[in-house]
């Protein structure tokens, strides 16, 4: 069952008086109990995609096209930096109880009890004590758990997670990811998880979408995309991550930098950094939708290779 | 430098009224007693200690509370009784003998005797700032409670006139047992009014002195002076009738006062002119000074700067006071003559000549611009500089200037007043030797007749005309705004008005 479907999302940002289209034709869907991982370098538009989906674009950015279909249930979001994303002037419990009451009604005391339960549910030890704390008094891991508890307090069907573990160390990272996994399994949540870290994605995602320069360039089941990447960017991305499991290869950063939105074209945007391109890459490239479980990429070279091989 | 007489130097042109009341009975029905008036002034009194008097307001107000032995008459031509009902000047014995009125008391009820008057004379003489003005006095004697004898080293008629000035006020002997500072924060005198309340810089409330020697006066029960520096605010208060009169309205605002509410003093006993530093080039050259004098078109200047509310200067001493006989010469104007004089002088075209003016009023800046324009027209390269008024005074005193613009107003009814100031300031900061003026003043001081006075003054006028220690340009008017409620305001050329004769209609 599809809980969230985003279709041909377009977002522009105004800079020095001109409109720049920074997200173009981004489509994806997520079903109950499913985890969609969106991976890409910084600045490729992953976070903006989540914010646009949530309807929380920063000032200056506007959605100029596309369709977002959400089931009856709501969306909730977990942010990257739990330090900045929690109101510093409010005790954790006050905030959490506020959200609970807003969603479920009831008395203050009841809301507070439920808040404590929620904290316990996300694995915060000694929840009653923590409720009285200010965000800055909590450890990074606990704060992120609080963020998740806040998100869960709205009883969402889909959880959008924006780099939820980036600010944490590896042990905590694993714990938070496990927590998300549990929440998904127990509540049948759909999860969209954005990360620049292929390892994180590999750990939790069922379906993977690779973004580059405001577009999805490759999508499909996690195993297919991550083990048999079709797009040279995906290959580079995976290659750029030192893998603990695989053979220890040399660390190869992708040469060059992603293009500025001002010079986005219908042609392959990875071409300048690719190294395998030819004339075909300069024409329009096909868009990739992460709507189903088929594995595909926008690389025209791959399709020709593929044809030659078959 | 010996100082004899004073005048008020009004560089700031912060004009307030000065002078003293008079004992002349009012012509109209004296039954109009009672009521209260509020008068606006731009600057507050300098406090109650007469030795600190600088502002005209101080000379005006002090005798209202602490009356002196004598006061000047309304036309300024003579001396009227004050606390003393009569006096005789013995030229041979060099004494003045005063007889005090009968039954005089201070406002607190203490009797006022010749001992108090003698103490006061001592106080004036010892004054740090004013002391030398009483330099002719050598001592006092008090043969009885109502008789005071002032002994002098010469038969100075000027000293008698000066005793009518606002700084010659009678206080209780030994300040009634208080310290000088304490006494002058809560002064007690025998004037027509008592201080009801005083907030320095804001408001002075005077009330009728019920023990005043003249039971008919003052007519007012209450007289309030509000200090308002901002001219617009002054006018707004007046127009909204929060105040009944303005002492010396800035001439800029004259047009906004209805014709029937103006009391114009035309002209006042004030000289407006260009002061010259004659101790250094180019002012040290008489040809240069003459060129400057010739360059100023006085009629045009009076129109341009004062909007016609001034008379072109016809002499070097103020008009309309005792002894003002004029110069008997003329201050000529002519561009060609001026250029010729300039050519004769050591001044070389292109050399900057500083003209410093007071920065604090648009009026003085404008006067500076007019003067500068007229001087530039004959080829003097004027560098007009606005200076904050105290800086200006400082530079004048130190001789650190070329030309400056200033005004000198008389506070007393005799032209000799200005003589003293001219001598004391070296010819209004020219640095020229003042021997001639000093000698002329010595003659004026003991002059008994108008002829003797006229002869002495003419010597000074002629010397000023020939040597130009300063260049007189105009005799400005003063304008009082007076609402129909106010009756009995009569202003002398030296800007005093008898407050005890004011009535609220």
């Amino acid at each position: 069952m599809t809980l969230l479907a985003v279709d041909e999302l377009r977002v522009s940002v105004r800079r020095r008086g001109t409109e720049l289209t920074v997200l173009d034709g981004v489509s994806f869907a997520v079903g109950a109990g499913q985890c969609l991982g969106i991976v890409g370098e910084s600045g490729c538009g992953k976070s903006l995609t989540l914010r646009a989906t949530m309807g929380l674009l920063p000032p200056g950015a506007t959605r100029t096209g596309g369709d977002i279909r959400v089931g009856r249930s709501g969306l909730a979001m977990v942010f990257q930096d739990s330090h900045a994303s929690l109101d510093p002037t409010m005790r954790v419990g006050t905030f959490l109880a506020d959200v609970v009451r807003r969603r479920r009604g009831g008395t203050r005391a009841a809301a507070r009890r439920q808040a404590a339960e929620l904290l316990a549910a996300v694995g915060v030890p000694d929840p009653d004590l923590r409720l009285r704390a200010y965000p800055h008094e909590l450890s990074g891991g606990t704060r992120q758990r609080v963020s998740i508890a806040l998100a869960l307090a709205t009883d969402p069907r889909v959880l959008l997670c924006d780099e939820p573990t980036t600010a944490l160390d590896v042990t905590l990272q694993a714990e938070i990811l496990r927590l998300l996994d549990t929440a998904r399994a127990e509540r049948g949540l759909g999860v969209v998880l954005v990360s620049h870290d292929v390892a994180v994605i590999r750990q939790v995602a069922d379906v993977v979408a690779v973004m580059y320069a405001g577009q999805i360039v490759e999508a499909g089941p996690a195993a297919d995309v991550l083990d048999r990447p079709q797009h040279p960017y995906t290959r580079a991305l995976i290659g750029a991550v030192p893998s603990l499991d695989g053979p220890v290869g040399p660390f190869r950063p992708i040469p060059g930098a992603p293009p500025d939105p001002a010079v986005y074209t219908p042609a392959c945007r990875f071409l300048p950094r690719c190294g395998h391109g030819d004339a075909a890459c300069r024409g329009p490239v096909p868009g990739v939708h992460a709507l189903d479980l088929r594995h595909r990429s926008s690389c025209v070279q791959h399709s020709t290779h593929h044809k030659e091989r078959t | 430098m010996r100082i004899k007489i004073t005048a008020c130097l009004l560089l700031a042109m912060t004009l307030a009224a000065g002078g003293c009341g008079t004992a002349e009975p009012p012509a109209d029905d004296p039954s109009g007693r009672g009521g209260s008036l509020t008068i606006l002034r731009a600057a507050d009194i300098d406090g109650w200690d007469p030795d600190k008097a600088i502002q005209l307001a101080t000379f005006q107000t002090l005798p209202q509370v602490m009356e002196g032995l004598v006061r000047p008459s309304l036309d300024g031509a003579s001396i009227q009784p004050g606390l003393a009902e009569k006096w005789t000047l013995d030229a041979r014995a060099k004494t003045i003998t005063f007889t005090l009125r009968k039954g005089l008391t201070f406002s607190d009820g203490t009797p006022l005797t010749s001992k108090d008057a003698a103490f006061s004379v001592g106080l004036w003489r010892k004054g740090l700032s004013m002391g030398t003005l009483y330099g002719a006095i050598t001592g006092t004697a008090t043969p009885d409670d109502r008789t005071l004898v002032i002994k002098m080293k010469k038969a100075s008629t000027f000293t008698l006139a000066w005793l009518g000035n606002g700084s010659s006020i009678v206080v209780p002997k030994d300040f009634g047992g208080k310290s000088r500072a304490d006494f002058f924060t809560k002064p007690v005198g025998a004037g027509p009014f008592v201080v009801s309340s005083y907030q320095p810089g804001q408001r002075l409330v005077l009330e009728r002195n019920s023990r005043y020697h003249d039971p008919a006066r003052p007519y007012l029960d209450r007289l309030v002076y509000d200090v308002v520096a901002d001219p617009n605010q002054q006018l707004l208060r007046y127009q909204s009738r929060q105040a009944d009169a303005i002492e010396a309205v800035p001439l800029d605002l004259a047009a906004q006062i209805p014709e029937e509410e103006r009391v114009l003093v035309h002209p006042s006993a004030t000289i407006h002119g260009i002061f010259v530093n004659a101790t250094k080039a180019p002012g040290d050259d008489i040809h240069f000074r003459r060129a400057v004098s010739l360059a100023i078109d006085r009629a045009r200047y009076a129109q341009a700067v004062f909007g016609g509310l001034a008379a072109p200067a016809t002499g070097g001493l103020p008009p309309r006071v005792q002894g003002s006989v004029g110069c008997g010469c003329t201050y000529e104007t002519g561009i060609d003559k001026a250029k010729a004089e300039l050519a004769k002088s050591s001044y070389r075209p292109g050399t900057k000549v500083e003209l410093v003016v007071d920065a604090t009023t648009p009026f003085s800046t404008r006067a500076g611009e007019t003067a500068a324009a007229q001087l530039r027209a004959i080829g003097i390269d004027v560098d007009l500089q606005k200076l904050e008024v105290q800086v200006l005074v400082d530079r004048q005193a130190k001789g650190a200037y070329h030309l400056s613009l200033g005004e000198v107003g008389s506070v007393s009814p005799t032209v000799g007043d200005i003589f003293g100031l001219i001598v004391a300031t070296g010819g209004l900061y020219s640095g020229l030797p003042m021997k001639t003026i000093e000698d002329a003043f010595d003659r004026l001081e003991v002059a008994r007749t108008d002829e003797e006075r006229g002869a002495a003054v003419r010597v000074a006028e002629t010397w000023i005309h020939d040597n130009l220690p300063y260049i007189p340009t105009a005799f400005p008017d003063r304008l009082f705004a007076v609402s129909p409620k106010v009756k009995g305001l009569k202003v002398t050329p030296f800007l005093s008005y008898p407050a005890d004769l004011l009535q609220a209609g």
Partner: protein
Amino acid sequence: MTAVTFFRARFRARRGGGRVRWVAVTLLALVILAAIFAPVLSPDDPARQTLDQLRPPSADHPLGTDALGRDVLSRMLYALRTDLLLMVFAAGLPMLAGTVIGALAGYHGGSLDAAVRWVADIFQALPVYVLLIAFVFVLGPGTPSLLVAFGTLGWIVYARLIRTEVRRVRERDYVSASYLLGLSHTTVLVRHVLPNSLRQSLVYLTTDMGLALQGIAVLSFFGLGVEAGTPELGAMVAEAQVLLRSHWWLAAFPGLMIIVIGSSVAALADRFNEDGEAG
């Protein structure tokens, strides 16, 4: 909101903002041109005094004459020259000084930062008026003293602004990333930190330019200000202040010009503001 209404709203908003800015730019351009061509445009010599004093606007004197019978229009045109320069320098110098000081203090931190903060604290704890008096008195009224006074008092705001911004930006990832790449301090400061910080300063600068004009007017109100005789808008307003109710045109036109210049410059700043929001 459907896409269509969304677009309309946005279009309107953009056109609205653009129009105001266009008007501002045009006005400012006109003012600058008027200042440049003042000698050509002036109907009269701005310094020529006549006995036609305080005349209301007429064909001969489109904006009337002042208390010395000078043509107000001509004086105003020449005043633009004085004021535009004064505005740029009175606001620009403090910004320059403040930016440099603030950037150094913010970037290096430590004792330099503490010293700057100390000095700034002291300056802010003093009644500005007394300082202005002291400055302008010590140096004598006139343009140089004005500039020194504004410069000495004005840098603090910029220094604080830049310092805070530099410290904030400095702690952001990309600066540390640039560090790792081995860029020098200056490069980091100039390439990454300053551009980000300067935008805010520029917004402040545009406000400051208007305020500088006003500051000069207020100083003129107290008799300080530019040299006597130099046509200057603030001085014209202050001098005509006593005549405001009888000869309104004397203060009204220069006053209006101050508002026009100040507002136009401020409207230019909106551009930075909006970009700031977008970025």
